[in-house]
């Protein structure tokens, strides 16, 4: 009886989903050809972006200066790298040991192992941005932007360490065994523990509001937009049917997040790592084919990093674009990944923080750099004939010069990456929404999320990117401010952890607690 009513409820949501989609589809079909649909939507988004731009993007040093928010992120990453005494280097080997399970203790509280938490967080960070974002960076900032992305990834490892350590330290274990963690918790609970409860509560609510909005952009519209670009690039059938693609994508994601059909999510969860491996192999293949040109390509990236000629804003412009795209891809300083990392089974907050620093490494320093090298090696970005190609289309065109059928792989990978990233971000956004409005209204948010996913496929990349960038980076304001204020707590935890780690007592403890389990 109970089961039945629950299932009926699911079905009613599916029906609601279709009801939303049908008029949207009809509207889109009727008006897409004349471009009327995209028009008003684009005007609305442009206005929202203009207001946000005014608040966050005021530039220091004139027209081509440094946007305030990018400076904030650079200062944050540098601060934590220095304050934690290069934890991004000295914690690296330990991070790999922990992920391999050497320090896992089944008796600790939490839901998943260190490896599982890292994988869950990566499903939100490794997305179409790793294929498309790099191309956008190179298009805007020249090959040198890829160098600054790497630098940003390297420094970002430290901000990621800081926020994920805090995520673990101030998480709560709910009565049903699930974990509540992430910036909302460490801002409110952490700051109140150092006597700044009022500020903490305010920052947590601001963070939740920014997160709920940013989810719609970077975690949703950008993914949908670039997945469409990748698919329509390989399958010309879709080239005038963005609305149809939007409906298919929203339907797949909607079935998982509204319909509760977890199988799709599980399938995407299996296929995404497979696609990542295929993608990596393809990158290596391109590098092998163009083996002799690799030193030249790296030379181009490094030399144009310090001497970018064709870019507005010169060196500073390349740095800004590099950092912006890197943060967009690896989310260091944004705080979102701390939500997933706080579920790890451990009683040592620092340990999960150290695991988390692998994330910018894998995402930015490894995968993004592979894409960058492929784009620079093949030279498509510099070819005047393909000057209009951007994002996923530029990456696909670059691979196509070596592997003719690879745009199809990019289309499949792009679709799957987008689906899995959208599902993960809908989780972050839903938690943020529930933090402000309570659990009862989360379905309203899910519907807004899906509608935005559809809008993201039909409007153009520039608008989507602008909205996504600015709303995502805005999350770093409350998040990094909280992390700065709590940096003393993090440093103390880190020192104590490192002392105990170096004395060798940690592994001994694990062996001790494990023994009864083996018996």
């Amino acid at each position, binding site marked *: 009886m109970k089961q039945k009513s*629950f299932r009926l409820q699911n079905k009613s949501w599916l029906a609601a989903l279709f009801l939303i989609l049908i008029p949207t589809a009809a509207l889109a079909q009727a008006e897409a050809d004349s471009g009327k649909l995209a028009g008003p939507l684009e005007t609305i988004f442009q206005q929202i972006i203009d207001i946000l731009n005014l608040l966050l993007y005021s530039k220091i040093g004139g027209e081509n200066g440094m946007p305030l928010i990018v400076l904030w992120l650079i200062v944050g990453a540098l601060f934590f790298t220095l304050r934690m005494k290069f934890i991004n280097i000295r914690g690296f080997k330990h991070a790999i040991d922990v992920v391999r399970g050497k320090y896992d203790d089944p008796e600790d509280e939490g839901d998943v192992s260190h490896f599982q938490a890292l994988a869950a967080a990566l499903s939100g960070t490794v997305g179409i941005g790793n294929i498309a974002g790099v191309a956008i960076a190179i298009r805007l900032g020249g090959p040198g932007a890829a160098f600054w992305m790497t630098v940003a990834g390297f420094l970002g490892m430290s901000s990621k360490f800081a926020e994920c350590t805090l995520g673990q330290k101030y998480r709560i274990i709910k009565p049903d065994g699930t974990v509540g963690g992430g910036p909302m918790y460490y801002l409110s609970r952490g700051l109140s523990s150092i006597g700044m409860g009022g500020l903490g509560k305010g920052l947590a609510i601001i963070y939740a509001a920014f997160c709920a909005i940013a989810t719609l952009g970077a975690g949703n519209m950008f993914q949908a937009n670039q997945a469409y670009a990748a698919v329509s690039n390989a399958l010309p059938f879709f080239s005038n049917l963005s609305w149809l693609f939007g409906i298919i994508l929203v339907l797949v994601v909607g079935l998982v997040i509204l319909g509760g059909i977890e199988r799709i999510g599980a399938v995407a969860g299996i296929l995404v790592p497979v696609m990542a491996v295929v993608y990596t192999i393809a990158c290596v293949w391109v590098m092998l084919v163009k083996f002799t040109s690799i030193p030249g390509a790296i030379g181009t990236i490094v030399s144009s990093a310090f001497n970018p000629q064709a870019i507005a804003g010169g060196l500073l412009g390349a740095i800004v674009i590099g950092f912006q795209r890197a943060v967009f891809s690896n989310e260091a300083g944004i705080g979102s990944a701390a939500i997933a990392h706080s579920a790890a089974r451990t009683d040592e907050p620092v340990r999960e923080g150290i695991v988390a620093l692998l994330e910018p490494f894998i995402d930015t320093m490894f995968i993004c750099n592979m894409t960058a090298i492929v784009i620079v090696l093949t030279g498509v970005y510099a070819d005047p004939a393909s000057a209009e190609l951007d994002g996923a289309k530029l990456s696909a065109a670059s691979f196509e010069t070596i592997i003719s059928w690879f745009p199809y792989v990019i289309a499949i990978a792009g679709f799957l990456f987008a689906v899995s990233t959208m*599902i993960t971000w809908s989780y972050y956004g839903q938690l943020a929404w529930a933090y402000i409005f309570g659990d009862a209204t989360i379905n309203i948010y899910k519907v807004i999320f899906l509608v935005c996913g559809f809008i993201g496929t039909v409007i153009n990349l520039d608008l989507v990117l602008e909205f996504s960038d600015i709303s995502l980076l805005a999350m770093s304001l409350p998040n990094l401010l909280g992390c700065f204020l709590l940096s003393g707590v993090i440093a103390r935890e880190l020192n104590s952890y490192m002392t105990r780690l170096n004395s060798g007592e940690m592994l001994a403890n694990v062996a001790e607690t494990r023994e009864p389990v083996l018996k």
Partner: protein
Amino acid sequence: MSCLKKKSVLIPIDFSEPSYEAIAIAKEYVEDISSLKLIHVLAPLHPADPAAMWDTLNNEDRQQKVQEFLHSKLDELGYKGVEIKVTIGKPGTEIIDYAKEIDADLIVLPSHGRKAMSHFLLGSVAERVVRLSHCPVLVLK
């Protein structure tokens, strides 16, 4: 007097203080504590929750943990022996369904649960229960 006493009173619990306080009020309507029934409704796990993604925590585990938590909490509050039901779904719907199932005479719940953001409105769960319940509902201010 005893003929006026209720045989089965349902109290939805969301771990908030007001919901625990509702037990004391509900107790006045029954002869024996065994006539009190508690329900807690868990939200389904989001598919991207790491625990759901890796299937390390299933619904039975979650229900079991809440049972244990509430039993010890009720012992502490002095309500030993109250029956507890833990379900998964939408709070309003689950409460109404369970009230029918146990043929409740009365539902007692606070007007607002954990997220008391809007004091000028009736909480959405309370509102839904009042609207759809088959039996009287006592909404606490």
